[in-house]
Every structure is written in structure tokens, then in C-alpha cells.
């Protein structure tokens, strides 16, 4: 999906479409009237979260049939998005902790004031990493439609496929995390050495774990995902760091390490704010360009006749699905940002940090991360089922629209009109003569006219 502007498809005024649609009789088979095109004001009232200025694709669709296929991804996948991101983020933070603590240990050796070792953060981070990789791997294998062939993911490496890249990232993450965990479980010199070498690999592949799923979703033809090729991985990456910090904060709170927990709270909040910013930017950009507001009613310009033909089996209540998406996003945002902000804000003001508030904030942020992944996945699938969105997204750019390619022009090609008054009959139409039929030179004979 290019970042550059796309020409609007058929800037036919919506009023014209609405007026023409109201002229057609509502099919008797439809019991409720909600599928009729509502006026802009009614739409505004029922779905206030959608801007009235949202441009819609007013061109034809094929009986409202989807033009691309929605992904088959469901709860297993959005659970993996959360778990995999958390595991990767946990190892990123554990690596940072080990890097900071090593220099802290050096400072301690040279007689400077004793510094932090972040021991428990490192250990918990490694544990979360391995458990997350194992659970995540199980979720992915269960999601395959032929799970017994899961190892085929490692037959080849394809750099154009984020799923191929991610398979190798997951493998290297699981391996290096396992090796780094040796340093937690065993205290021998070799164990510590192996762990020290594996930790940066785990951190780098952990960073890969946090973002490759966003690139995976964006490298499809699903409108909601494909319209945010950079913002979606940024959003997933920040959310992964935020949820990992929240999980580590919860574990530190349970252990009674108040200062460590407070540090992790701040990291989590910073990452959550980054996630909220990327999410808001991505959604705003998507709505500005691609969101379909009009419920899927055959428009007069549709290839199908609009007279009494009900739209196909795709749900017509677009406002309801828009509403559901907005509700999912809002609850995700509340859980993921507002509640932790409030809890940890209060905690910062209190003289003695409250365990309960700290835990509430952390679990709320975890729930928010999970809900955000579900919302993004479900909204993507919904957007793929709306042909207006995909067909609107795939209009030609300014560069592509050329005079010699009328199909790429933003306005419909001039149609032959054989029944308009006042026009001279189009002289080009004629019955092919015998000579033309046998491929000899063109004979401009005049056939019967149309009037």
C-alpha cells in the first residue's frame, strides 16, 4: 500500500447516491430498515465515533461480495500475538537489565556506591521468555490446519514472507532463551558464561518477536492492516514492551521489590503511551482513507441492478460492526492505559507503594494488551469482508492513473449512451459486414441506427 495519496474513487456525491437509493423500493424480503442508506446526520448520531467527513467508496461492487478473503485467524492467533510479544519484550528488558547491571557491578568493584543488579528482573524475564515461547509455539501449531506438518515451516527461508522470518526468529528466540535460562538455574562458571553469550541473542530475537507479527499482518491485502505498514509493527512492538514491563512489574511487586517495580511501571507507561500514539495514528489514517461508512446496500452504480435485489450474504449492519470495533478499541485503551495510569499515579503519590494498586495496574495493562490484539485482528477480518474498503484502497495513485488506461482513471470511463436525447447517434456502431467478418479491410457501412 503506497504512502502517497490515492485518488478518490468516483467522487460521486453521497447525496446523489442516497437520493437515488431512496427512489428504489426497499426489498420486501428485508424485515428491518436499518440496511437502507441513512442520511449523514442519522449516521452521525448512531455512530458518533466516525467522522461525517469520512470519504466513502461510491463506486460499484459485485453484489456486495468481498473482493479479497479475510484471514482465517481467530482467538488462537491473537492470543499468540500477545504471548509472543510479551515473551520477546520480557527478554528485551532482561537483556537491558543485564547490560545495566553489569556496568553497575563494575561500578561497585571500583568503589562507587553500590548499584543495582536487577537479578530478579533478569531471571523472571528469562523465565517469561521461555514459557512464552513454549506456549506461543503450541498456539501456533494448534492454529495450523495441518498441525502435524508444523516442521515444514523450516523447510525454506523466504525473505518476502514475515511468517517465514518469524518462524526463524521464534526458533532462535526459543533456543537462546533456553540457553540464557541456564544462567538462572545453574550457578557454575560455564552456565554463567553460556548465559552471558546467549542473552544478547535472546534480546535481539526478542525484539524481532515483538514486531514481526505486525509486519506479518500488514503484508497482506486486508485493508485495515495493509493501510498501516509501518504503524502496525510499531504498535505491536510498543505494546509488547509495555505488557512485558507490566508483567515484570507485577512479579517484582509480588516479591516486594518496590523500587524495581516502580521503575518497571514507568517503562510500561512510556511504552503504553507509544503504543497508544501509534494506534491512534494508524486508526485515524485508516479511517481518513479507507473506512466504509455506508452500509452495504446495492448502489445504483453497482454492477448489479439495484431494483429489488437484496445484497448478498454479507452482513449489512456496518454501523454495528463499526460500533463493536470502537467498543473493543476503547475497552482495550481503558484497560491498557487509563487504569494503569490511574493506579500507578496514585502509587507514586502514596508514601508507601500499595501492592494492590500496583498489581491492579499491571494486570489491567496485560488485559489491555490482549484486548488490543484481538481488536486489531477482528477489525482486520471485518475490513476484508467489506468490498468498499478494499476496492477503495486499490484505486490508482496519481502516477498510475493515465489517459491511455481508462480503467485506472478516478472517474468512470465515458459510457456509450444510446438512449440520451439530443445526442447524435454514435456512428461507430454498426453490424459487421461480410468483409469485416472475413477480416478484410474495414468497410464503414452504416447499419440500423438506434432511434
Amino acid at each position, binding site marked *: 500500500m503506497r504512502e502517497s495519496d490515492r485518488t478518490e474513487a468516483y467522487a460521486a456525491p453521497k447525496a446523489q447516491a442516497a437520493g437515488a437509493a431512496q427512489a428504489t423500493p426497499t426489498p420486501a424480503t428485508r424485515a428491518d430498515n436499518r440496511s437502507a442508506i441513512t442520511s449523514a446526520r442519522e449516521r452521525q448520531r448512531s455512530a458518533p465515533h466516525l467522522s461525517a467527513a469520512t470519504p466513502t467508496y461510491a463506486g460499484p461492487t459485485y453484489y456486495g461480495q468481498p473482493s479479497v478473503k479475510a484471514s482465517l485467524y481467530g482467538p488462537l492467533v491473537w492470543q499468540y500475538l500477545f504471548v509472543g510479544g510479551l515473551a520477546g519484550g520480557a527478554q528485551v528488558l532482561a537483556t537491558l537489565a543485564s547490560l545495566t547491571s553489569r556496568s553497575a557491578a563494575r561500578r561497585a568493584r571500583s568503589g562507587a556506591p553500590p548499584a543495582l543488579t536487577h537479578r530478579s528482573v533478569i531471571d523472571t524475564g528469562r523465565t517469561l521468555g521461555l514459557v512464552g515461547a513454549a506456549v506461543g509455539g503450541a498456539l501456533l501449531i494448534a492454529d495450523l490446519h495441518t498441525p502435524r506438518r508444523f516442521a515444514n515451516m523450516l523447510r525454506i527461508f523466504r525473505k518476502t514472507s514475515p511468517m517465514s522470518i518469524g518462524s526463524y526468529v521464534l526458533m532462535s528466540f526459543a533456543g537462546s532463551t533456553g540457553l540464557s535460562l541456564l544462567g538462572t538455574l545453574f550457578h557454575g562458571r560455564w552456565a554463567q558464561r553460556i548465559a552471558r553469550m546467549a542473552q544478547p541473542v535472546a534480546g535481539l530475537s526478542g525484539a524481532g518477536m515483538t514486531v514481526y507479527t505486525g509486519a506479518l499482518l500488514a503484508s497482506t491485502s486486508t485493508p485495515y492492516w495493509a493501510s498501516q505498514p509501518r504503524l502496525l509493527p510499531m504498535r505491536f512492538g510498543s505494546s509488547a*514492551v509495555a505488557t512485558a514491563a507490566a508483567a515484570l512489574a507485577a512479579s517484582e511487586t509480588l516479591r516486594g521489590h518496590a523500587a524495581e517495580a516502580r521503575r518497571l511501571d514507568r517503562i510500561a507507561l512510556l511504552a503504553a503511551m507509544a503504543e497508544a500514539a501509534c494506534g491512534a495514528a494508524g486508526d485515524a489514517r485508516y479511517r481518513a482513507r479507507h473506512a466504509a461508512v455506508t452500509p452495504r446496500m446495492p448502489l445504483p452504480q453497482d454492477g448489479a441492478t439495484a431494483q429489488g435485489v437484496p445484497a448478498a450474504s454479507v452482513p449489512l449492519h456496518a454501523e454495528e460492526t463499526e460500533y463493536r470495533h470502537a467498543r473493543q478499541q476503547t475497552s482495550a485503551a481503558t484497560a491498557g492505559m487509563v487504569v494503569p495510569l490511574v493506579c500507578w499515579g496514585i502509587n507514586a503519590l502514596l508514601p508507601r507503594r500499595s501492592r494492590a494498586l500496583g498489581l491492579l495496574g499491571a494486570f489491567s495493562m496485560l488485559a489491555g494488551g490482549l484486548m488490543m490484539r484481538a481488536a486489531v485482528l477482528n477489525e482486520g477480518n471485518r475490513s476484508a469482508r467489506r468490498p468498499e474498503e478494499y476496492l477503495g484502497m486499490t484505486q490508482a495513485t496519481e502516477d498510475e492513473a493515465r489517459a491511455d488506461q481508462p480503467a485506472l482513471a478516478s472517474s468512470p470511463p465515458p459510457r456509450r449512451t444510446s*438512449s440520451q436525447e439530443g445526442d447524435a447517434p454514435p456512428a461507430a456502431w454498426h453490424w459487421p459486414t461480410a468483409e469485416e467478418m472475413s477480416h478484410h479491410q474495414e468497410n464503414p457501412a452504416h447499419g440500423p441506427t438506434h432511434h
Partner: protein
Amino acid sequence: MNAPMELRRPPPESGTAATTPGAQAIRDEALQTAGVRIVPGRRYGFFTDTTLCIGCKACEVACKEWNGLPPDHFGLSGMSYDNTRRFSANTWRHVSFIEKISDDGDPAHRATAMPPFQSHWRMMSDVCKHCGNAPCLEACPTGALFRTEFDTVVVQQDICNGCAYCVPACPFGVVDVSHEDGKAHKCTLCYDRLKGGMEPACSKSCPTDSIQFGEIDVLRERAAKRVERLHALGATDAYLYGVPDGPGATGGLRELNAFFLLNDRPEVYNLPAAPTRPSNRVKPGLLAGLATVAGLALAASALMGAGGSDDA
């Protein structure tokens, strides 16, 4: 229909499969039925001239019969004569029907005279486009989707593990994963028939030669001539969909080995005017995401070092 004497093959050698009773194979059958000699290494595809389609759906039937595909569903869709509705794992050819009641798009102005050409029907046999830079192939992590020696795109059924990543990747909504056998399926351009020197089932069964099978450059020349002829006859809205630099082959897809002659906007046929190649978004996405995580990591490392210690 019997071929004339000069086109009949010489009698096959004895002892071969061709002389075994009951197995009278014709070598290079495509030479007789389509005028095409199928040679591995050359590029083959379809040119579908929708102005010739009569909507008989012989292509759908032939595809189902040859590939042994089960039916998808029964029941009328209400979408004119299109009861197949869409591609699926069991539907690899799909004939679309669009009735253009009026010339100017307003159904109140019903056309009172129809030109002899096409008579306000748009019928098109849709199929996998076997794209030049096929997004399904680029998305496949197992290598099940590959490019054959005939320049077509095929899913290897013994490798696919049903990850279903090709399904949202396809910009035309073609490939799908079957819930019965758990693998991805789509048109193979009758790879098995091509290997046997036969043209694909759909093009062989098409009674009007709307679906033409052949080498890509030959097809493109033929198609360009057909477009010129249509323009000369007055059908000025005819154009090719899927040729390089044209609609359908935009955004990095390069070209569609199965290309079409349409005479209306692509969206009317449920085709995107200017699809894009999804793998163009991989690198920018990964780099932007990694940069964000790196930035957060820097901030986090600063925050990790701040504040007092409570214990180890």
C-alpha cells in the same frame, strides 16, 4: 471433431502406453485443441476475452470434474445467474454475471435499444491470475507454493501445512484453505494436464474460445489485436486487465499470466483496479517496528538505571 489428415499424429510405437488397449493417449493434444505446443520452460497462461463469454459455466464444470472438486453449497444466490458466488478451496473457476440495465448507471433510465455487441451483459470467467510476482507464493513460509516450469503458480499438497497466510495475502481473493483436508487450494492451470501435453480443462471446454490458452506473448499479441478490433467496431471501453503497466498488474505485481479483456470498470467484476504487492510492506514494517523498540529500549535502559535500590 476429427482433425484433418495432415494434423493427425503418426501411429504410435507399439508397446507404449499409447498402444495399450484402452489407453489411447494423444501426444501434444494441445496442438490439436488449442494450437499450442506445450514445452516446459515456456510461459503459459490464459487470455479470457469476456466479450465472447456466454455464461454457460462449462469452465466451472470442467474444472470441478477434472480436479475432482466437491460441490460447495447448493441454493440460489440471487446474484443473477451466479450461484457460485466466490472462489473457495473447492471452486477454482467462477463465472460472474452482471446485468447492466441502463447505459448511464441510473436504473431509472432503462436502455431502450441495445447494441448488437454484448447486449448489456457482463459475463466473465474468473480464475487464479497466476501473477508474475505472486503474493501467495511470496507469503508461503513452507515453500508449498512454487512457480512451475510453465510459469504458473501451484500449491504442493504434500508440503502445505495450512498456515493460511496465503489466504489474506492474495489481492484477488483466490486461494483458500479447505476445512476438510486442512490445506490450501487454488487453480493449478491444470499442471497435470500440461505435463501430459493437454491444455487446461476450462479452456478446452469453453465453447466460444472466450478462455484461450497459450504462450503469454502470443496471447498478448492476440489480445491487443482484439482490443483494436473492438475499438474499431465501436466498443471503445474495451481494455486489457493484467498486462504489464495496466490495471490489475500495478503495485509491483508486474503482470498476470491469466489476463482479461474487460469492457467495464474492474470493480464491476469484483477486481481491484490497482492492487499492490504485499511483500513491498515487509521491509518498511520491520525496520519501523525495530526502530521503535530500539528507541523504547534506550529509554528503558535510562529508566532502569535511575532510582534507588531496595535489594538485589
